[in-house]
């Protein structure tokens, strides 16, 4: 397959390998949706980036801003692929990829990501069969509204800006079955109240302490019944979209709320399973392509070896990068829970060409024996976990010890290479440290000495043309970072674990709930921020803006408050704090 192929032959080859990957994937228990491959130019793919690849997504100024930012930042590198959580799935392949890279992205995207979308329960409610149509309809509706002379861009933006500011405040998936609605809960509590009052009348006459207890219960229930909603809700967009809660809100705004809410719910699982999903795809991009059914030629394997390790460029990525950390965890699960259970013989058709030179599978085949690996635990985790649970459970001491040993091994190899380069380049032998000391502190000292020499040699070179130390500052910083992370792990294992869990994206969304609309009291709406010690207090500017945006979306001019906690002094304890607005413009603040 090393001769140059024309485009149609290349497509035929890719589809042939797609079929082969399908055979291997089926045997391994992978079950992605069917896939539509779209073969696009780089420019077409980059145009889709702000829409997260979904064609037909609605246009908005913030996407233009993101597009410009992407353009200025060089898009973070070449976009090799995109794939959508749809059924059938849409997988974009870049026209500038080589054949080995196309195979890599097909394995990564389809047998990694699409399989994950199809099997992880977080995605069960995203309705992948209708999402493309839903997004198109949403775009059409918004376009109609913008073109409507009674609305226009300004009014649409007035509401959409506010809705986007609150776009993360949607229900937490998956939906809990059998949960009582607010109405049902209110009825239930009313009945409980009646029962408590009856008991207070009867049993209260027998015992005064019982009477007090029952009266306390009655007071608590009455207070609860005065609140609306009965249960605090974090689904702010859903609450605002419900006409029962915002009867004076224009229908068009309700429509905008529903559109953004639907979009947020669609993307929420992707944000909450980033580490798992990227790790899964990074795991299978190699494992699948090495299966005998795929039968990759040797020259492809050399190219692919480079792609397979692209997220290992820095050893610190094994702790901090979703791809590398995710893949590391999946391999750990495989090592710990997987086992070999015999062998199976696989028939692999040999490749040939038809009369037009297109690659085809011939009738001749070979039999290859392959070890069957039990990956039941991996499949179970794939189905039931999200990032939080994935990291909480598997980012354990054993995993860390293994990763620390790997990264220290990387540092030792780097030290060996640098020692050789120092001697070879004619630097003082004093700067080459042989043998490599075993302790962490001594390795740190070596790196620190080299950092000093590197920087001063660069300065001397600029000023007087003297030789530069043969290692870059970034490499030494990378070594220093690894050594510090290992030392930090030794200092506080629990804390470092906690911090890595916190790096998963969705947990940095603040927990803000609507606790009361004042429907049965003073008509003022109350939002409450539940402080998370890991993140500390909210940014004050964001509190004021959030409050102003929320005020806009209720269709009523009643006041809104946000209750949170702020320190009175820098680094002091947190105390109750209130942000309050009556007009949606001026925000008053005070400690409570």
């Amino acid at each position, binding site marked *: 397959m090393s001769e140059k192929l024309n485009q149609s032959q290349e497509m035929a080859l890719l589809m042939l390998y797609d079929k082969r990957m399908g055979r291997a994937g089926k045997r391994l228990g992978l079950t992605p949706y069917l896939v539509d491959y779209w073969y696009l130019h780089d420019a077409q793919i980059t145009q889709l980036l702000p829409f997260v690849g979904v064609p037909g997504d609605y246009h908005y100024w913030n996407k233009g801003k993101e597009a410009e930012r992407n353009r200025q930042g060089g898009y973070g590198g070449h976009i090799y692929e*995109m794939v959508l*959580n749809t059924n059938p799935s849409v997988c974009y392949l870049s026209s500038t990829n080589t054949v080995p890279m196309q195979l890599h992205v097909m394995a990564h995207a389809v047998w990694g990501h699409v399989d994950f979308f199809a099997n992880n329960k977080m995605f069960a409610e995203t309705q992948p069969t209708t999402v493309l149509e839903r997004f198109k309809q949403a775009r059409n509706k918004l376009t109609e509204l913008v073109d409507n002379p009674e609305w226009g861009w300004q009014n649409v933006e007035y509401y959409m800006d506010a809705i986007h500011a609150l776009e993360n405040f949607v229900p937490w998936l998956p939906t809990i079955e059998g949960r009582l609605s607010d109405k049902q809960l209110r009825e239930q509590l009313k009945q409980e109240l009646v029962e408590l009052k009856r008991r207070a009348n009867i049993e209260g006459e027998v015992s005064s302490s019982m009477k007090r207890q029952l009266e306390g219960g009655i007071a608590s229930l009455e207070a609860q019944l005065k609140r609306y909603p009965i249960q605090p809700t974090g689904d702010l967009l859903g609450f605002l979209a419900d006409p029962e809660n915002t009867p004076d809100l224009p229908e068009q705004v309700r429509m905008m709320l529903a559109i953004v809410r639907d979009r947020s719910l669609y*993307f929420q699982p992707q944000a909450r399973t980033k580490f798992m999903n990227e790790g899964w795809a990074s795991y299978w991009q190699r494992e699948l392509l090495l299966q005998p059914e795929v039968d990759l030629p040797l020259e492809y394997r050399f190219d692919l070896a480079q792609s397979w390790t*692209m997220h290992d460029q820095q050893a610190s990525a094994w702790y901090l990068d979703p791809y590398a950390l995710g893949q590391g965890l999946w391999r750990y699960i495989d090592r710990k829970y997987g086992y070999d259970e015999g062998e199976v013989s696989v028939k692999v058709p040999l490749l040939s060409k038809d009369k037009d030179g297109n690659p085809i599978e011939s009738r001749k085949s070979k039999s290859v024996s392959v070890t069957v690996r039990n990956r039941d635990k991996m499949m179970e985790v794939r189905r039931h976990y999200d990032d939080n649970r994935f990291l909480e459970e598997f980012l354990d001491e054993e995993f860390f010890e293994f990763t620390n040993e790997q990264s220290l091994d990387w540092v030792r190899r780097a030290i060996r290479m640098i020692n050789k380069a120092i001697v070879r380049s004619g630097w003082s032998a004093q700067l080459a440290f042989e043998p490599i000391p075993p302790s962490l502190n001594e390795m740190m000292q*070596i790196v620190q000495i080299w950092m000093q020499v590197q920087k001063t040699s660069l300065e001397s070179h600029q000023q007087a043309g003297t030789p530069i130390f043969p290692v870059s500052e970034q490499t030494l910083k990378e070594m220093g970072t690894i050594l510090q992370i290992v030392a930090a792990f030794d200092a506080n294992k629990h804390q470092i674990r906690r911090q890595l869990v916190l790096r998963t994206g969705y947990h940095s969304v603040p927990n803000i709930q609507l606790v009361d609309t004042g429907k049965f009291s003073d008509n003022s709406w109350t939002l409450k921020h539940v402080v998370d010690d890991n993140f500390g207090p909210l940014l004050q500017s964001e509190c004021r803006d959030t409050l102003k945006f929320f005020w806009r979306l209720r269709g009523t001019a009643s006041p809104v408050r946000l209750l949170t906690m702020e320190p009175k002094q820098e680094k002091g304890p947190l105390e109750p704090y209130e942000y309050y607005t009556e007009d949606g413009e001026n925000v008053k603040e005070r400690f409570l």
Partner: protein
Amino acid sequence: MKITDKLGRSLSVDVVVKAPLIDMWMEPLGYNLTDSATHFLRVPEGQFALRVMSQLGADLLVHLNGKLLLSAAVPKGIQYLECDQEGNPFFFGPPDVREAGNLNKNAFFADGVMVFANDGFTGDSVDGDSTTGDGATNNEITGDGVEDQTIVLQEPLAAPFGDGVLFVVARFADDPIYGECQPPRQEITATFQLQAPEDHDKNLAGSLSRLIQPALPDEPDEVIKVTSSSRPKFVCTCTGCNTGKGHAH
């Protein structure tokens, strides 16, 4: 760390400590966080120095724990400032360690370093790339109605206070190239948080979610290719990573 003014002139100011392994200075390891401009350094308790590297001379103010220790003019080249203006070596650590330790009484000012006796810069200063305040201008109307603009002396910048907080203010010395028309004397600052090794390790453990990962090597012809510079950068966009979801608050 390297600090650069608006004209692109740069100077490097770093903390260095003595290496036990061989007799020379070494640069302590450190990290940066996403929500802070401070450089957190792992510094053993004891003496330290400031390494100043510049192709031009520079004027420096050095504060430790909120107290001004040194006000000096540093010539161009690579200079090591080892002691304050009273000749006491720069020291990090609790007082009992200082008293018990053998301080290098031979700590000296590098050649060409001039120490100022006053408390701060008395020249004009404007807002540079850092946390300095604005230079204020007083407009006084004189008897014949002409405005007399005088530059109000910059109040000394309040140095951040805290145990082990090293705060350096620097500005470039006059460059003969410019003759009489010298560029504005912008002040630029750097804050280092010196932490004893145990504290540093614990603090890093508690801040890992905000750690800034080191950049990839960008010199393709470096002798040590510890990482390959020709690997493709893979951008996978299928999981909504461009939506910006999950921002820290």
